[in-house]
């Protein structure tokens, strides 16, 4: 399924755990530093309503005065668990892309505010960088450094799996419970 930004709440509510989606449009990166910054009351000079936040610290190189993305896979999302639900509400996000999944607080936030968690393939930095057609710019670059900055990216057909939906479904909870049960039998 194609997801084009800005994404409507109806489209998000139609998604379920296990769906394969491809994101096209504008995506902003944001990871540890920016989540804490927003939690501490900071605000960003960008409008992300209906948008997508990508947990990613890309490799960026300036070539002929233009930023070029050399590698851009997802980073572990669990570190943003204390802040994510609040950030989803504050920025009006419709999707968060990352890896490894998130916890109950974020799951509840997805349900309340109409958002999904999209799992990109961790480590697949080249396949995912190929989907980035243009680096539009960055904010907080000086303050946070390149990996932690908020990069504005134009993406095409960025592949992800819905692993947490807006109906309370979480693949991560399911797999953890199943694997815990399986291990108990094998010990």
């Amino acid at each position, binding site marked *: 399924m194609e997801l084009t930004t800005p994404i409507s709440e109806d489209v998000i509510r139609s998604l379920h755990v*296990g769906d*394969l989606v491809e994101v096209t449009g504008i995506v902003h990166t944001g990871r540890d*530093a920016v989540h804490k910054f927003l939690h501490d009351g900071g605000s960003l000079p960008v409008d992300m309503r209906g948008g997508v936040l990508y947990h*990613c*610290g*890309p*490799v960026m*190189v300036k070539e002929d005065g233009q930023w070029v993305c*050399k*590698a*851009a*896979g997802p*980073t*572990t999302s*669990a570190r943003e668990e204390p802040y994510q639900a609040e950030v989803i509400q504050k920025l009006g996000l419709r999707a968060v892309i990352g*890896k*490894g*999944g998130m916890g109950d607080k974020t799951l509840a936030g997805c349900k309340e505010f109409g958002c999904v968690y999209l*799992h990109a*393939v*961790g*480590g*697949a*930095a*080249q*396949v995912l*960088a*190929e989907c980035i057609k243009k680096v539009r710019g960055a904010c907080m670059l000086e303050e*946070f*450094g*390149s*990996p*932690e900055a908020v990069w504005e990216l134009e993406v095409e057909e960025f*592949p992800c*799996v819905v*692993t947490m939906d807006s109906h309370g479904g979480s*693949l*991560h909870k*399911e*797999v*953890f419970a*199943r*694997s*815990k049960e*399986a*291990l108990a039998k*094998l*010990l």
Partner: protein
Amino acid sequence: MAGLKDNLLELIRRTSAEMPDDVNRVLVEALKAEEKRTTAEFALKTIHANIALAAKKSQPICQDTGSILFHVHGPVGSDQLVFEEAAREAVAEATKKGFLRQNSVDSLTGKNSGTNLGPGTPTFHFTQVRGATGMNVRLILKGGGCENVGAQYSLPDSRIGADRDLKGCRRAILDAVLQAQGKGCGPGVLGVCIGGDRATSYAFSKEQLLRSLDDRNPNAELDALEQEIVATANQLGIGPMGFGGKTTLLGCKIGVVNRLPASYFVSISYMCWAFRRRGVVLSADGGKIERWLY
């Protein structure tokens, strides 16, 4: 010196962009084993496409080029400081070229050095080898996602019912796999150390990651445990990326060092599927590449 620096730069480039064959081979088997048209298969296909693309473009397999861990075996009397200087220069240049991400952050101020250089980064592990004629330099780039799911157990541990024996070690290792789920970018490889103090135990667990995936442990008991851990982990259904599926681990390597009577540590270092580990044998002055390892 310039020759050494250039050779180390090439080692960094290869490590960041080209997967070692022993890991590739196991990943090919993993894709074959996975059920078709599942999210697990999607993950593994993406991984394979990514490996090919990174090598073709000579760009990082993963954007998190991680901790930079140099392991050097050199002749007695070789100058470690000269090596470190050349390596630091190579690291800074590799960062500028985009083979490495800017990955060295001041822990107090949050300021990124921008060069990968700073207190504690990169790290060097030197070993002198009597009679060696050349320098054996191996490099691991270990990303933060997998580093964060590493775990250290102090046995006995009643939470997981682990006593001070190999059965207890097995419980600790499998618990680490369960807790890691897909967060360390599975399917991964475990480097394990039984024994040591807290610091040496973790350090030695990472040294296990220098072993080729297809080697066998010379200790029969540990060899059996290595095989069994992989087989058992792959029955847990965690799968690639934690999506569910057949391959949770690609390998497990276990080493053992002596401990204090009072301590019994089991340390587990998790390496992601993007197992960036390369090595090179250089002439004694570092100026000439004799051959590539792995």
